[in-house]
């Protein structure tokens, strides 16, 4: 039965005066505060975007004004109605409020990030030529009439036809120089010292050795960074674990300092670290390894320390009672508990490091990223295409191995020794030797030089002092703030567009929907393959394609982020669909519900929470990615940052880094709140 209290007009009036005040007075403090902050934020956004970029400008007689004030007024009106309804203990839908708020935000985002949909159509021919290059990579060279040419699919098809028909095919085929640049080649080089010392080569005589290509260098960078960051993160993680540090006097101070430091270091993307590191040790793969390591240490440290905090305290207590000291307790009660999760985080990080290694070359030099910068600068898109396919191949493999090994670790089966003991020792010995050889090889390949660590470049001191005294003058803050907003809006649009595109495809990629039927299973494999290939390539590598299509600027960056979002969100969505509980479907079908009713009442309610949580996850990723997309011409704060770094204006670069840290931390906080509310 409805009990209708008398309406309180003053509640509605207070919400009319200050949005959210009425709700606040009704002891719905959180709701009131949220409404107030949203109104304030929307108002600021509208006036800022109108004053600076004339967004939403309409002429009203002699005045020009932003039409976006209209949806804000409607939002205000909703807030009054909401307060009025709450006063009478009723509730009205908050969908209108979400609609008006989203309208304002998306209109501004659309304009700020310079979305030009018409270019997608008008310059479609350019896109087609890039696409044709992408599918005809420079892998095989044919020599005909004394000239070398790229032999792509049609040429290969003709060659195969000639061979099958018994005709003499045109010129011999061989792997292209471009492919050898990426993979590596055997060629005569001056022998390294150790070969001479072992008597396998002579001074002054070239020997034939494998010279690694850019992709091999990339793999080495990813491996070295993973190794170094693990070695550093394991001891550091104990300093960031509450349950360990709270045992020592003053330990909590170290704990909070570590937590703060880790969050700041993680908020700055690997690529941005690359910019800082090259000032320290100079361009090259070593700079890449350091940049990857810095970010990776912080991320691993956070995961490791959380794992230490969640161990079972029982065994720790038991081992302590035997009279064991701290080191013994760690070794017997803590280490065995955390080994599986540490290993699985390590493998996860290896995957992430390999992906980052493919793009770190954009700023640090070295690896496939540097190769992509070079080739695209020359407009060599078929060569660029080869690099993309090589990256896709390697990353898909790494992703598979990492996921597969993690799944095995999570099973946590007891290791059963098999075979003779000496055979096991032999295997261990072989692996140790192979590991050492790989380590030394990677060490040399990535040009690691400990001495240059302690001999920073001449500008590094300047950078450090400038980062302490960042430029906070309005002349710098204005444009930096604008670019930060552009970056945030890029992430927002990319997440939205990516999810909208992914939604229908994710249903096709769900095994329980399309994988059962032999007629539709090809759809399953096709959509899965598309997700996996697109997901394996970092957004920075995509930007080039979109620059060619829609021109340099934030729109190209947004589209590149949309590609990666589409692939990751699509994969996660399809897995959520695969994981739904079939019980409710069965139950509703048994009640006589039709398929549409089953979807609405049994399937959608199960999908909404995971979908929202994946969207928020993707949004977190995109915020970070958007800060670097400008390094390749994708607009946003990254462009500003490279400009300042390039012109040695480190005090302004410091401002940008500080803004990035603040923006990322703020967005993380918001998404965590949102997740709490919605999921």
């Amino acid at each position, binding site marked *: 039965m409805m009990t209708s209290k008398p309406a309180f007009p003053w509640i509605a009036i207070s919400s009319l005066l200050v949005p959210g005040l009425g709700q606040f007075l009704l002891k719905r403090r959180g709701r009131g505060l949220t409404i107030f902050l949203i109104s304030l934020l929307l108002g600021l956004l509208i006036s800022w975007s109108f004053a600076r970029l004339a967004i939403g400008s309409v002429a009203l007689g002699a005045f020009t004004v932003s039409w976006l004030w209209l949806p804000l007024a409607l939002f205000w009106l909703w807030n009054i109605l909401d307060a009025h309804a709450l006063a009478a203990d009723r509730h009205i839908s908050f969908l209108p409020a979400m609609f008006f708020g989203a309208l304002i935000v998306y209109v501004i985002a659309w304009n700020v990030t310079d979305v030009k949909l018409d270019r997608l159509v008008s310059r479609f021919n350019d896109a087609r030529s890039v696409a044709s290059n992408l599918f005809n990579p420079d892998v095989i060279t044919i020599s005909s009439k004394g000239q070398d040419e790229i032999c792509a699919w049609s040429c290969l098809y003709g060659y195969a036809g000639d061979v099958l028909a018994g005709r003499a095919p045109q010129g011999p085929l061989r792997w292209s120089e471009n492919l050898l640049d990426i993979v590596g080649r055997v060629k005569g080089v001056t022998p390294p010292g150790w070969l001479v010392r072992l008597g396998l080569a002579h001074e002054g005589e070239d020997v034939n050795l494998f010279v690694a290509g850019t992709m091999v260098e990339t793999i080495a960078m990813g491996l070295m960074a993973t190794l170094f960051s693990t070695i550093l993160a394991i001891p550091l993680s104990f300093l960031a674990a509450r349950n360990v540090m709270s045992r020592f006097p003053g330990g909590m101070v170290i704990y909070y300092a570590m937590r703060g430091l880790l969050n700041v270091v993680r908020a700055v993307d690997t690529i941005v670290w690359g910019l800082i590191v090259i000032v320290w040790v100079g361009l090259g793969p070593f700079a890449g390894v350091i940049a990857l390591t810095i970010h990776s240490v912080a991320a691993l440290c956070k995961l490791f320390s959380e794992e230490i905090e969640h161990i*079972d305290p029982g065994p720790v207590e038991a081992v302590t009672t*035997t009279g064991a000291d701290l080191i013994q307790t760690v070794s017997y009660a803590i280490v065995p508990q955390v080994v*599986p999760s540490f290993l699985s985080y390590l493998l996860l990080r290896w995957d992430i490091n390999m992906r980052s290694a493919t793009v770190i070359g954009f700023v640090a030099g070295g690896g496939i990223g540097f190769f992509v910068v070079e080739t695209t600068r020359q407009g060599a898109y078929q060569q660029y295409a080869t690099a993309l396919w090589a990256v896709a191949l390697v990353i898909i493999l790494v992703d598979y191995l990492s996921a597969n090994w993690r799944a095995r670790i999570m099973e946590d089966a007891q290791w059963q020794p098999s075979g003779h003991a000496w055979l096991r020792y032999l295997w261990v010995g072989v692996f140790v030797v192979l590991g050492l050889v790989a380590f030394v090889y990677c060490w040399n390949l990535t040009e690691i030089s400990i001495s240059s660590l302690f001999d920073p470049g001449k500008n590094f001191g300047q950078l450090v002092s400038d980062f302490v005294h960042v430029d906070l003058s309005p002349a710098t803050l204005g444009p930096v703030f604008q670019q930060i907003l552009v970056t945030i809006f890029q992430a927002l649009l990319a997440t939205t567009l990516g999810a909208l595109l992914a939604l229908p495809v994710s249903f096709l990629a769900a095994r329980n929907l399309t994988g059962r039927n032999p007629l539709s299973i090809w759809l399953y494999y096709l959509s899965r393959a598309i997700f996996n290939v697109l997901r394996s390539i970092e957004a920075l590598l995509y930007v080039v394609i979109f620059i060619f299509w829609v021109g340099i600027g934030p729109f190209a960056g947004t589209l590149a982020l949309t590609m990666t979002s589409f692939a990751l969100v699509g994969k996660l969505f399809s897995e959520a669909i695969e994981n739904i509980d079939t019980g409710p479907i069965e139950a509703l079908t048994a009640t006589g519900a039709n398929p549409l009713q089953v979807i609405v009442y049994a399937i959608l309610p199960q999908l909404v929470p995971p979908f929202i949580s994946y969207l928020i996850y993707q949004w977190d990723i995109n915020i970070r990615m958007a800060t670097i997309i400008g390094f390749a011409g994708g607009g946003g704060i990254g462009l500003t940052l490279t400009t300042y770094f390039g012109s040695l204006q480190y005090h302004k670069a410091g401002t940008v880094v500080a803004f990035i840290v603040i923006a990322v931390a703020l967005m993380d906080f918001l998404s965590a709140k949102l997740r709490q509310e919605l999921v």
Partner: protein
Amino acid sequence: MLKIENLTKVYPNGTHALNNVSFDVQDGEFLAVIGLSGSGKSTLLRCINRLVEPTSGHIFWDGRDITSIPQAEMRKVRRQMGMIFQQFNLVRRSSVLTNVLSGRLGYVGTLPSALHFFSRADHEKALSSLEQVGLAEKAHVRADSLSGGQQQRVGIARALMQDPWLILADEPVASLDPVLAHSILKYLEQLNKERGMTVMCSLHYLDLVHRYATRAIALKDGELVFQGHPKDIDDAEFKRIYGQEAERVSLV
């Protein structure tokens, strides 16, 4: 040999877990500690080996005040007090043998043990401890593959590695079914009677107290409300310890 004087423990959140508790434990006793959940039994046992630092009062071990000796000294004292836990507290992923060997950590050097190196004598001792609890053939399987009763026996074997004079047992059978409860307590009784180890054991069920303990103390809201022979716990005493609502239940 163990003398508790005016022991008080106040946790940082303000809980008075122990309030001015004093009693003695004689050599060779099987002392049961009874009381409701939250009456302070676990805190009392953990104060004795200082897993929990007492707020005030004194603990005398073998005539020596150990209440505030330094940690390095305390580790030597802890070797003489084995402890057994309700949740067994084994490292689930380590082998049974490693779990048992970890009972020896107080006697061996930090570096060799951190590298998981133990002497042959320690290995033999671990295997014979396992034999005493009937689990010799399980030495190399992982602890989490054992049943609850077997895990508790591994816990006892681990405590035996310390060559303890005193065994502190914190609800050792509360996670086990009645049959297993008797088998575990029989092991403790055997250690008590045949090897002269003093046992101090918190228990929930009064009939187990009657069956195994030579003496009992009772805690209520952190205060000592009874000490004496288990037979002396009559109905009035029982209501005083467990509250007016309580009724006697029997195990098995």
